């Protein structure tokens, strides 16, 4: 053959398929996505086989799920906007609590990471507090704050503050001493080092820390509302649970899952806008 020494290597889909079995080999998009679709199909088939088998009548069929979904958006009988009302109620508890815990956690973490005195003062206490489940201690919060807005805030703050403070502290400790010394030779005061240099430098990790606690905060909130609420997600799930309304619960959970992904995307966007210099490790 005349062109043997400069053969054009044409990659076929068969070559791509072989990559499936190679460890850590990047796959082309269509192939990766088809695996994702495969998993979705698997879940749908498994669910359908349970729902249509007739052995358990409580598992709703796809048609019932669809009516459940519309009922969740607008209840045809009462005209309530179930999802919207619960979201407003729960987020008006969640967001202030997140804000309070973030501010406290950032301040504590920054000072603990720079001054040993602050670390000696709060480090072990926060470490201990992290191990206490706030919902198990709910009687304390109820005694202190009653069935009020303050109580939910307290439960969530109590639960997520140690995590945020701990992660901010760890991020500040990662900042090399040289940065602090350089800042001092440039004439920075202690507060300037903490707020204009360290805070800005660990801001990406702070955003990560807050993002990772949103899930925990939701768990705490739903559990508290389940036990003591008059409205909100937890209270709704309790009522739906009592009437065994899986046709509403399942669409509800799906919607919450997608909302969670949306929140993560918002945090990613904030991080990218505020910290354009930051590149995640491993990317």
């Amino acid at each position, binding site marked *: 053959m005349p062109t043997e020494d400069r053969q054009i290597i044409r990659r076929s889909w068969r070559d791509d398929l072989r990559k499936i079995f190679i460890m850590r080999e990047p796959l082309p998009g269509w192939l990766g996505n088809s695996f994702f679709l495969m998993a979705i199909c698997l879940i749908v088939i498994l669910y359908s086989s349970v729902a249509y088998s007739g052995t358990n009548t409580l598992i709703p069929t796809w048609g019932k799920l669809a009516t459940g979904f519309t009922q969740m958006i607008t209840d045809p009988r009462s005209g309530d906007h179930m999802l919207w009302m619960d979201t407003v109620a729960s987020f008006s508890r969640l967001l202030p609590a997140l804000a309070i815990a973030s501010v406290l956690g950032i301040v504590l973490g920054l000072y603990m990471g720079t001054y040993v005195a602050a670390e000696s003062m709060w480090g072990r206490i926060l470490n201990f507090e992290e191990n206490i489940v706030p919902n198990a201690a709910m009687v304390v919060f109820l005694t202190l704050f009653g069935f009020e807005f303050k109580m939910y805030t307290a439960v969530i703050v109590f639960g997520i503050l140690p995590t945020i403070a701990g992660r901010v502290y760890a991020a500040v400790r990662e900042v090399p001493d040289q940065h602090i*010394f*350089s*800042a*001092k030779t440039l*004439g920075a005061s202690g507060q300037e080092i903490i707020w204009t*240099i360290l805070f800005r430098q660990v801001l990406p990790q702070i955003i990560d820390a807050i993002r990772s606690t949103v899930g925990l905060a939701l768990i705490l909130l739903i559990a508290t509302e389940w036990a003591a609420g008059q409205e909100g997600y937890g209270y709704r799930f309790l009522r739906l649970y009592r009437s065994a309304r899986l046709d509403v619960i399942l669409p509800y959970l799906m919607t919450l899952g997608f909302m969670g992904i949306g929140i993560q995307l918002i945090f990613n966007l904030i991080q990218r806008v505020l910290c354009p210099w930051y590149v995640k490790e491993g990317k």
Partner: protein
Amino acid sequence: MIDIEKTALYCYGVNKNFGFLPVLTNIELRIAKGQFVSLVGGSGCGKSTLLNLIVGTHEPSAGEVLVSVNGGFIQVRGHGPDRGMVYQEYPLFPHLTALKNVILGPMLRETTILTRLYGTVTRSWPALRKIHIQKAESLLARLGLSEHSHKFPRQLSGGQRQRVAIARALLMKPQILLLDEPFGALDEETRHGARELMLDLYQENMTAVANGQSPPYTVLMVTHCLDEAVQVGDRVIGLSKHWRGRDQAGATIVYDKIAPVYQPKDTKSFGAIGKQAAEIYEIVLNGRDLDPSEHCTFWNDVKAGKAEGVLAPRS
């Protein structure tokens, strides 16, 4: 010796122990304004400790580190803007662009958080910031970094990062600039450029002295490359733990001599550089017990008129 006005730094009987471990013993060091001093020594002999004593990270166990300010000596207490420092690792703040790293100095020195907040309301802070940016941009341009001024440190090469860090330190106009193996991690080509930069700065010192002004830059540079020490510095100091009469003591200065001064574009006489480097190796790094004063002839040589550079402007 020289008088206080011409001195930049004076270490007087400095000792440093870490617990019971003596690291530095009886360091006597007087650096004149405008000098570029190279500090060499074996690993673990306390070069960085001496630098940290001067910059203020550590305090001496005995003796005093004095910096001359306005014709008098001030004892070093902690970090201060009169002593600049460029570290080998993490020289820049990763969250700021090169330009913002450089203007951080004047911003932190001239303003506080409160004056910046108040100045934002009265519009005086943005105006001051504009002046800072102009100063920083002209300095970066002089160091050949104009096109990189809006890049973040991770987008810069190692050599560029070191040069930005040097620019940031120089903008503070410190009494003495301390460099801790600044070019240690660079490849040979970048190193060459960085050395040329140091020689350029030294040339500015020479011009200032020739015009009867005070030379603007004084540098104390730790390096493990002996050729670089001889080539960049106008004086080489060697620290060693091995010296005669030492009894449970730390390192001290065993070598202190004049080094040749080169113009940036000069052809360096590598024979002479290599010869002195070999001499330094024999004395400082070979681990023989020597009389510490035997090779510390710098000030006598200056008196004898052997000096070049800022201490002998006419030659």
